[in-house]
């Protein structure tokens, strides 16, 4: 049970980082990045490739590019950088010319293509089988496994606190206001001199870095990453967390992440299997998620904790 609590805490931390990144892109800056999972995947793969030694080493059972044998903090940072780079690349595919709804479709297609390419191209990142850092991965030396696990929860917690501090710098103040203006009407924003493409590419970089850190911290904990781990539906789960929690509201999105990613999608694991229908309860989780998305868009489009704007008063 205690092990499961640790798992949930790590999931919560990594899901929060990802949801914050997606909220900055979608909720604050208006980029419906349906390829957000790619930034998480980039972070995860980068972490693995920076942690493992060269692929060609004797006895290696996996194929991949790179292999740098770096310590844990460097590999995590590499994950963040990889996420930022992939975020910008996703941005370039869609942001230059297309309208917002076409951008979303373009990004979804990019997401599906990337998964297909990585699955098919085994020498790149070991293809369909995925990459694992196990069995010999020990970032904290030879300590008691339980101490190690709690230590890991603490590390994720520290990254989350630091991440939230950085996030708030982008979502509040003049920059947060400008990004929301770009979200609400990109043409009107351009008409008052805002460079819409540049600001959105910045947002893609920052949001992507959050996704990358999330992926790196997750893969270090679960030990491996394969194309099956990053289907586009994972993006939809995060998107639902943003919509249900409250687009553009950091606190609301945090609550939404807890409800959707932890309570709902992990919670169904605790339900008994439905006799004769193995796997149905997991599917039910996704069904509830879809219904919730539709219900919120219809009935409460600004989410549980709607975006708040500063009140200045009309006074002198």
């Amino acid at each position, binding site marked *: 049970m205690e092990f499961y609590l640790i798992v949930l805490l790590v999931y919560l931390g990594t899901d929060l980082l990802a949801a914050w990144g997606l909220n900055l892109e979608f909720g604050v800056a208006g980029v419906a990045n349906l390829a957000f999972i790619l930034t998480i995947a980039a972070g995860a793969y980068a972490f693995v490739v920076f942690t493992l030694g060269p692929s060609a080493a004797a006895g290696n059972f996996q194929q991949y590019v790179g292999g740098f044998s770096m310590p844990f903090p460097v590999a995590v940072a590499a994950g963040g950088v990889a996420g930022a780079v992939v975020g910008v690349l996703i941005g370039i595919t869609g942001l230059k010319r297309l309208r917002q709804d076409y951008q979303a479709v373009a990004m979804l297609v990019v997401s599906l293509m990337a998964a297909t390419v990585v699955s098919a191209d085994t020498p790149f990142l070991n293809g369909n089988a995925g990459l694992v850092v196990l069995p010999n991965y020990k970032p904290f030396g030879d300590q008691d496994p339980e101490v190690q696990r709690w230590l890991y929860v603490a590390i994720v917690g520290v990254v989350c606190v630091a991440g939230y501090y950085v996030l708030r*710098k*982008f979502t509040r*103040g*003049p*920059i947060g*206001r*400008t990004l*929301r*203006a770009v*979200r*609400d*009407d990109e*043409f*009107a*924003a*351009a*008409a*008052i*001199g*805002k*460079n*819409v493409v540049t600001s959105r590419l910045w947002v893609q970089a920052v949001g992507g870095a959050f996704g990358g850190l999330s992926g790196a911290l997750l893969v270090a904990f679960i030990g491996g990453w394969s194309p099956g781990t990053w289907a586009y539906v994972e993006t939809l789960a995060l998107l639902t967390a943003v919509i249900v929690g409250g687009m*553009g509201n950091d606190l609301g999105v945090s609550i939404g992440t807890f409800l959707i990613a932890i309570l709902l999608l992990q919670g169904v694991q605790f339900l008994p299997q439905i006799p004769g229908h193995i796997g149905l309860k997991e599917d039910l989780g996704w069904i509830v998620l879809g219904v919730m998305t539709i219900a919120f868009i219809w009935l409460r489009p600004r989410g549980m904790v709607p*975006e708040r*704007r*500063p*009140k*200045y*008063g*009309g006074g*002198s």
Partner: protein
Amino acid sequence: MSTEGRPILEVHDLVRHFGGVKAVDGVSFEVQRGTITGLIGPNGAGKSTALNVIGGFVPPGGGRIVFDGEDVTGWPMHRLARRGLVRTFQLARVFGGLTSIENLMVAAPEQRGETVLGVLAGAPYWGAQERDLLARSRDMMRSFGMEVKADEPARNLSGGQKRAVETMRALMTKPKLLLLDEPMAGLSPSLSRQLEDLFLQLAADGMTLLLVEHELDTVDRLCSKVIVMAQGKVLSEGKMSELRARKEVQDAYVIG
């Protein structure tokens, strides 16, 4: 070279076709500094398209646009805006999720809090500028009689209020040339008269305004020069009082 003597805007043989429709078909005119120029004509004359091309919203199909002594043909909107050429839209566009006063504040150019350094350094770096900006925005809201709506999300405003917010927002950028597409549409008569006085004052202070307007009495009161467009071409130009007497202008309005 001093650009003081030259017109602030020179449009040479501007063309914009949509498929087979020649919306703007070889339009040339000049706008002098510190004046209010009107662009009138029947529906479909190409006034809004001309404004859209000059303002960078729609790329030109041909011709040349010189603003403040510089060839700006084909520049994107944000670049023109930073140079001082700012436009409003025919259907008012506000930032619905921001409050009214934030709609004004966001428009100020060169905000320290928008830069990478500003984001990292935080409020100590941009706080003072932000307070000035708030004061300036409040003054502007008050001059439009909208201070009670300052904290209202802009999406909740009426059509006329949205238009007023859009005009104020454009003024917050401190433009050299302001392009206004039917700025009086949907405004109450009293606010509309107030706005006329404001436009005259802005022009007296050296700002240049080019406006598309249907209400010819307004045009008469405001504009020292009026350009009449019909079927994508400039039909005539001069003072409103002279234009009313001209046969081709009367014909265009009857036919158009």
